[in-house]
């Protein structure tokens, strides 16, 4: 489970969250909501939970905001040093994920961090690595994490398919995150996505009022841009 409200007394800030990453034909799409909560208080409505750890590799963060920010900081430090030693040959996604895993596993007693590492490298193309709490490392075609992920596990299992195009994958990620947001109280705000492929990396955002709503959530209002799903 996630960090508990027992920690809130000490001011622990959580990213009760929905995060995910998905491979498509030629790269990966990472997606996340933007709600940082401290108990019932929304500390940040527009948080950025997708953090760059090195060129073309990003980290989705869930759990304790402090812990995951620290992990991202260390990973960034080690990967920068590693990039210098490697020279022209870039850092592989696997190396980035292994370093994140080493930090998570070595400090497992103290850590509250569920993370997803995803990116693109020349040798292997787009890859997604899940690093759930405890410090396992798994390469997977797609991964979901955070408190909201439980509501969309079946959805992504059913609807992900190999060989999607970039746009199909982005739409898939946005739909999945919006479904999680509609049921998980700790997820909300905007939907951020990062698309990484051979050409580069592209950060985008779906503003709050354009996030899809479902069933009873959708109130018929004039001028709303939210797509209607039944």
């Amino acid at each position: 489970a996630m960090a508990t409200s027992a920690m809130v007394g000490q001011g622990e800030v959580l990213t009760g969250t929905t995060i995910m990453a998905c491979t498509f034909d030629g790269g990966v799409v990472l997606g996340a909501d933007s709600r940082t909560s401290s108990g019932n208080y929304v500390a940040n409505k527009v948080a950025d939970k997708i953090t760059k750890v090195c060129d073309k590799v990003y980290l989705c963060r869930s759990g304790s905001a402090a812990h995951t920010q620290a992990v991202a900081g260390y990973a960034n430090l080690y990967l920068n040093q590693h990039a210098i030693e490697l020279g022209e040959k870039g850092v592989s996604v696997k190396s980035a994920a292994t370093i994140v895993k080493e930090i998570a596993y070595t400090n497992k007693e103290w850590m509250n961090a569920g993370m997803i590492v995803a990116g693109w490298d020349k040798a292997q193309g787009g890859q997604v690595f899940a690093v759930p709490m405890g410090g396992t490392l798994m390469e997977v075609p797609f991964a979901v994490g955070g408190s909201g992920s439980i509501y969309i596990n079946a959805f992504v299992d059913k609807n992900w398919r190999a060989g999607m195009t970039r746009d199909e994958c982005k739409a898939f990620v946005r739909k999945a995150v919006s479904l999680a947001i509609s049921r998980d109280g700790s997820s909300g705000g905007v939907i951020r996505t990062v698309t990484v492929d051979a050409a580069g990396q592209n950060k985008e955002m779906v503003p709050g009022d354009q996030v899809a709503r479902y069933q009873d959530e959708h109130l018929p209002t004039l001028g709303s841009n939210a797509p209607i799903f039944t």
Partner: protein
Amino acid sequence: MSGAGSGYDLSVTTFSPEGRVFQVEYAGKAVDNGVPSVGVACKDGAILAVEKPEETKMMLPGSNRRIFTVAKHVGMAVPGKLPDGRQIVSRAQQECENYKRFYGNTIPTKVLSDRLANYCHAFSLYWHLRPLGSAALTASYDDNGPHIYLSETNGVSYRYYGIAVGKGRQGIKTELERLKLGNMTCREALKTVCKCLIKQRDDQGSKKFEIEMAWICDESDRQFVRVPEDVAKEAEDAAKREIEQEDEDSSDMES
């Protein structure tokens, strides 16, 4: 020879007025006067070969190995002082293991040879240590093709198409420069390497030699292994035959 340093060669922390560190150069001599060692990068892999003279008839053939597997994809020959060489091999094995543990990927050869060069160099910075009297001749084969690197005792590290160190290296290097190694397979190059090593022997026939050979190639599944005994023997025999043929031809021409 002795006295060449004239007082500036007593410690590794002393420069001469010309800017030389004699102790480091002397360490290099340990490699230069050591057993001949060759490394070549071919079309489909890389080869390492070391020629060892038989020290005593009582010694088992295959003793005092000079070529070691450092990781599945990397091997190393250590010309010069063998005990110093074993130290370098041990360090290299640790580097490979730690790199894999921390980064998840196998260590690129350039990174390994740079680290070993730095390791050797560190020994030249402290008064209470002596430089290592052995170099690291590394062979590997990865997605970027076959590699041969030489990390020298003074701390430099270069990549080569083909390189020889130890006794008779000049002659062997001259031979290697004539070849188009990039177009040869490892099997073909094996015979040529044996030929180079056999030719540079001073006293042919009287003393016994053992050529230790190892390779990493498509044939070996890109793992660094000893050349199979039958392949090694075939290469050595073929090399000897070619040398005899050349001797006959040249003596025919003379008469």
